[in-house]
């Protein structure tokens, strides 16, 4: 025998074949933590730090200014319109796509995803071209007292475009996975279409729907580029919270800008917390990619 198996006198600590040496593990974890600190946590802390630079009273006072108040109201109103409309679209699209077999389905899914690969600025531009004062339709709308661009409808349309795929994308994989048998069972038991949807489908998709609505809402309240282009940025009228941040910032009203930003950061915080809670509690009822 030429080969001899040399057994080390003192065996090294046993390490499973499916992991890396402890040193490497520690280094990799360290690298991740450093990058995330520099990239994610530092900015988050900076927002609150800058907002409170001159104390709580000053920060809160900056929010009670009338422009700030109207920006908050506008943002809430836009979200209150966009989110339900988007949820209705998402449910309808997911129903048509998952409960029926038809030609061209893959194309429609691609088209629903299209807004993901369009720049927000271009999204805003689309509605300026369609309804702006330079277009025939737009000129007529302005003349008849129902302007879309530089008004609430334009902001809503641009935000709808940006958030278009959010709810549908959450619902389609979940409803595909759940199949059609439960709905068919309800029908054979005599339930009407609406009854079937309300008592069988909706309870099965409610957490996935909530998940999509959360993300849609976060994006709707935070959208900047598309709204910047389409809103005309009229102070106190068509200025949403993110646009107000830019205005304060450009006017060197740092505390006001960062306080408004802190308010939106809190929204992000709530969104993330609820989203994570959903992922932990209802993993089995969300799309497979959210189960971890």
């Amino acid at each position, binding site marked *: 025998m030429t080969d001899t198996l040399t057994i080390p006198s003192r065996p090294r600590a046993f390490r499973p074949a499916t992991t890396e040496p402890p040193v490497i593990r520690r280094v990799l974890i360290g690298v991740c933590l450093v990058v995330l600190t520099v990239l994610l946590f530092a900015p988050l802390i900076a927002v609150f730090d800058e907002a409170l630079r001159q104390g709580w009273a000053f920060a809160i006072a900056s929010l009670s200014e009338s422009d700030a108040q109207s920006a908050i109201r506008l943002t809430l109103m836009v979200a209150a319109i966009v989110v339900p409309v988007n949820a209705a679209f998402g449910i309808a699209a997911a129903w048509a796509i998952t409960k029926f077999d038809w030609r061209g389905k893959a194309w429609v899914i691609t088209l629903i995803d299209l807004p993901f690969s369009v720049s927000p600025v271009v999204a805003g531009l689309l509605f300026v071209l369609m309804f702006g004062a330079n277009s025939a339709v737009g000129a007529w709308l302005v003349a008849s007292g129902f302007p879309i661009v530089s008004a609430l409808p334009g902001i809503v349309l641009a935000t709808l475009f940006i958030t278009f795929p959010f709810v549908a994308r959450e619902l389609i994989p979940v409803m595909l996975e759940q*199949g059609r*048998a*439960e709905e*068919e*069972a*309800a*029908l*054979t*038991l*005599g*339930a*009407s279409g609406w*009854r079937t949807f309300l*008592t*069988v489908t909706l*309870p*099965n998709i409610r957490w996935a729907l909530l998940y999509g609505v959360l993300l849609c809402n976060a994006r709707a309240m935070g959208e900047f580029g598309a709204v910047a282009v389409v809103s005309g940025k009229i102070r106190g009228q068509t200025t949403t919270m993110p646009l107000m941040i830019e205005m304060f910032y450009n006017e060197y009203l740092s505390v006001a800008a960062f306080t408004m930003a802190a308010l939106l950061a809190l929204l992000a915080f709530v969104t993330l917390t609820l989203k994570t809670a959903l992922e932990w509690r209802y993993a089995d009822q969300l799309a497979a990619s959210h189960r971890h």
Partner: protein
Amino acid sequence: MNIEIEDIAKQFGATAALHPVSLFIPSGTLVALLGPSGSGKTTLLRILGGLEFPSTGRVLFDGTDATGLTVQDRRAGFVFQSYALFRHMTVFDNIAYGLRARSRKSRPAAAEIARRVNKLLDLIKLPDIGARYPSQLSGGQRQRVALARALAIEPRMLLLDEPFGALDAKVRKELRQGLRDIHDTTGLTTIFVTHDQDEAMELADLVVVMSMGRIEQVGKPEDIRARPKTPFVREFITA
């Protein structure tokens, strides 16, 4: 109720799932639709239940045309292969679903619904599981709950898609007898789909052997065993 199938065919796009088939099922019979996967047996069952529309042909229930009857109005007790129990409802609510879905005039009072559900739970010999959720049941229990749910609507016929398909051998044997008993007590025309020839031969009064969207032979189990009409039938029942 007797069931008449007249030249029923079904196309899915360019492929024919069913070539025109005709069949008469006398009232109260326990029928097995037997065949390999892709033979069209599930499609035929779903057409009877109103879950698919036939491309051509007619279905008659007791001599009246039921082809255009909606799935809700057919009152076919349908047991799905996966059972399709409503996962967010208790067993009780699952079984009560069809009664509660009725229009206000014909809907029984809550106490009457409870009485009927409990009677059905007794019939499937699972009297104490009303408060449980489907995920807390064994496969065999789920199958029986699905059966009870289908029976709750006082169906005109019972349609079962591979009712024993997802169960292990021992439970399968027990539930076969259970289905036979329920058929005998209710007297309902009952049609079940299976790919297992033992199951069909042992359980059914009438066996319909299908292949490639066609009916190969219809007959009593002993006749089919003794005189297989085509080479396919001979091969399939001896396999």
